[in-house]
């Protein structure tokens, strides 16, 4: 017996006790869940949406998704307001989640803007009264089945069965959560991950148009390839900045750039000259300029805006710009203010080229969506003039401009969804001729949006442009303001041309019809008009709000 036991026991040995002294315990990270609650709520709603897709029957999904999205976004906005009321926007602003996320004025302001944009975008996503009823089912702007070959047998079957892609709601929420982190990111890793978190759902959403699906898929592939390339460039820049400063946190890099960091041998080695810093900074800024669609990184914009489903285009044009400008502001104002004599001339050039190219190429466009795409490029240029100011008024003017621009853009694209003919949306400009005779209300609303884009007084666009140009002029960039005003005049030409076309030309006999929207799209458009007029007539309250929210935490 003992012999067999010994034989068996020789097959194993008792394990050595873990040497707890040799490897010190990893301290628990401290995460301020309350301060991160807006983002967490949106993530939670998104995951809930995915679960609805997985388990709810097809008929119940649309209502469930819409409810979850709206409640989630409203709750996130309430959480943001509560945080701002607690003073996190001013006195108590600090960096949460182990230095990953800043909770400060610009972050809360931009997050609030993004959540409201997303709420309005959810309404346009959920619109189901525009397309004619297909086989007894109301349909939205999204493909019946994204995987079906365009024009194929499977697609017809899916349409007949009344399928809809309700996955767009959780995808929208994921994108929103990524966008909320993006302008608040306080280290470069979080910046990169949040960039991917909001880009990936957008690539997918672009591919899901119900009509003109090949164009939509082409837009998605283009956006994905170019976006992946710009992400790679941004990541390379992050690596170089890390090589220079030995840290990825914004404050840490800023200390090294300013020369206030404790000099270690490693730092003495890398900071011998500025090559790494200059190249790294340039590449990170390049990645962000791609997202805001500044010239010369704008090539994707017209094709993607034209191909994507129009509600997605509106959401992208508004929210991506807000998020990316927020991140750009934080990067240039928190990380690289010590380098402003290096980056300001470059940004001058980019701003001038962006304004001029955006405005001039827009004149030649014949498609409404492409026209709005080039106009969004020109607006990126106007926003850059405010960024260049490097002053508190620069921050607040850009914040204000972003609010004004985004709601007008959402409203504008919502109007585009209403003008339809047999092939879906009639986006060719020639078809819009005489629309003012046929549908005066719609044409008047679109005219208001166009006047706001052009920056005519008493509209939000004018207040915004005035704010950024004033900030730029105070920052010593008077020539930039002159270029801005000239390109505004060029831009005004084509906006006014569209208005003239709508009101003073005879309608075509085979012209498009104007669909009667449900309250969802009507709300989006009405909000756009309201913001345009309120920010145009009485902008002071919102300028003050943006001014109060204009201090970054470090």
């Amino acid at each position: 017996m003992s012999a067999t036991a010994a034989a068996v026991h020789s097959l194993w040995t008792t394990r050595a006790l873990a040497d707890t002294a040799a490897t010190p315990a990893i301290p628990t990270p401290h995460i301020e869940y309350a301060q991160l609650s807006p983002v967490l709520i949106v993530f939670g709603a998104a995951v809930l949406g995915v679960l609805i897709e997985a388990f709810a029957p097809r008929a119940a999904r649309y209502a469930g998704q819409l409810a979850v999205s709206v409640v989630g976004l409203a709750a996130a906005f309430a959480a943001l307001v509560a945080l701002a009321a607690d003073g996190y926007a001013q006195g108590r602003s600090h960096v949460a989640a182990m230095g990953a996320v800043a909770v400060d004025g610009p972050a809360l302001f931009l997050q609030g803007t993004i959540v409201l944009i997303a709420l309005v975008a959810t309404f346009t996503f959920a619109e189901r009264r525009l397309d004619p009823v297909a086989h007894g089912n109301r349909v939205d702007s999204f493909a019946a089945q994204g995987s079906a070959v365009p024009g194929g047998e499977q697609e017809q079957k899916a349409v007949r069965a009344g399928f809809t892609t309700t996955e767009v709601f959780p995808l929208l929420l994921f994108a929103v959560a990524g966008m909320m982190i993006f302008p608040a990111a306080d280290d470069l890793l979080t910046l990169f991950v949040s960039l991917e978190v909001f880009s990936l759902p957008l690539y997918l959403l672009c591919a899901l148009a119900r009509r003109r699906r090949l164009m939509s898929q082409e837009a998605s592939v283009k956006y994905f390839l170019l976006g992946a390339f710009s992400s790679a460039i941004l990541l390379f820049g992050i690596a170089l900045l890390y090589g220079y400063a030995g840290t990825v946190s914004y404050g840490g890099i800023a200390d090294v750039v300013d020369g206030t960091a404790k000099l270690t041998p490693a730092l003495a080695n890398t900071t011998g000259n500025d090559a790494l810093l200059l190249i790294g900074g340039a590449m990170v800024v390049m990645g962000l300029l791609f997202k805001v669609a500044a010239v010369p990184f704008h090539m994707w914009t017209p094709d993607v805006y034209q191909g994507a489903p129009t509600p997605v285009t509106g959401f992208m044009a508004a929210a991506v710009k807000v998020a990316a400008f927020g991140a750009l502001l934080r990067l240039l104002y928190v990380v690289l203010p010590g380098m402003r004599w290096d980056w300001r001339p470059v940004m001058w050039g980019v701003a001038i080229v962006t304004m001029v190219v955006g405005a001039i190429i827009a004149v030649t466009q014949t498609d409404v969506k492409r026209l709005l795409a080039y106009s969004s490029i020109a607006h990126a240029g106007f926003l850059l003039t405010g960024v260049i100011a490097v002053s508190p008024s620069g921050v607040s003017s850009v914040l204000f401009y972003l609010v004004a621009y985004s709601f007008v853009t959402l409203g504008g694209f919502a109007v585009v969804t209403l003008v339809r003919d047999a092939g879906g949306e009639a986006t060719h400009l020639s078809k819009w001729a005489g629309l003012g005779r046929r549908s005066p209300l719609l044409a008047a609303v679109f005219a208001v949006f166009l006047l706001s884009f052009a920056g005519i007084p008493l509209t939000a666009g004018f207040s915004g442009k005035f704010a950024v140009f004033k900030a730029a002029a105070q920052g010593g960039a008077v020539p930039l303001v002159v270029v801005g005003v000239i390109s505004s005049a060029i831009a005004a030409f084509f906006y006014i041309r569209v208005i003239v076309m709508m009101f003073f030309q005879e309608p075509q006999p085979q012209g498009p019809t104007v669909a009667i929207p449900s309250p969802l799209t009507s709300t989006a458009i009405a909000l756009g008009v309201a913001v345009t007029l309120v920010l145009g007539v009485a902008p002071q309250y919102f300028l003050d709000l943006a001014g109060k929210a204009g201090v970054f935490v470090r």
Partner: protein
Amino acid sequence: MTTSTGEAIQFWVLGIVAVLGALGTVGMRKAVHSALCLAGTMIVLAVFYLAQGAYFLGIVQIVVYTGAVMMLFLFVVMLVGITAADSLKETIRGQRAAAVLCGIGFGILLIAGIANASLHRFTGLAQANAGGNVEGLARLVFTTYVWAFEITGALLITAAVGAMVLTHRERTERPATQREQSEARVREGRNVTPLPAPGVFARHNAVDVPGLLPDGTPSELTVNQTLRARGQVRDVGGEQERRVRKLEQRSDEYVEGVTEGEGAPEGGRDRSGDNDGANHAEGAAK
């Protein structure tokens, strides 16, 4: 610390391999070749990581990227069709030349700039790996960068949902059962038996070679309709017809020989006996 001679040699030798692999990934005409080039580059990168003391990253690079992701990618390429090649026709004239020129210019600018950074020594590696490479990484991932690590989860969910949205085809109606299918076949009276098999006289048993009808013409029914739609059916009709004709001619000659000569039938019988034996052996092996 400075770079040792061994590491320098390793870098310059493998660096060339990595760059060649990357160029191959972009330049190859067939997706399979591109994928294999990419896998090669990834393995070289893994060696770099290992040589620089990033053991965890190096192993993950091999196990996850090269082992799992790239091989899945190869599976996908094989499913899509190994012969599929992209059209490399330029749609905008001079675009490729301009792109190459810009790329080289950007590369020179970048290389010149980074080379100018003049980093002669490296420090901090021993410090970073002090408590063990994996432990050091864990400390960073679960404390300082825990937020970035967590929101990566959102990225994974999005990727999974996106893959489903773009590729999953939910059936719109109940699929016909086998019984219904067979009843429908009988009702229509066409192809009541199972469809004929592909391949010709056991010369080609590949699924992309159509079987031949008695008159030597290829039969549409024998090849899967997916392959037919993709145009991946091997067009051997002409060749097979020629071979069949040759075979017929030979058997004619043989038959003529039998009627003329004496020894030929014996040999013929022997040969057939051998064939039978071989067939039996093959059957046993199966």
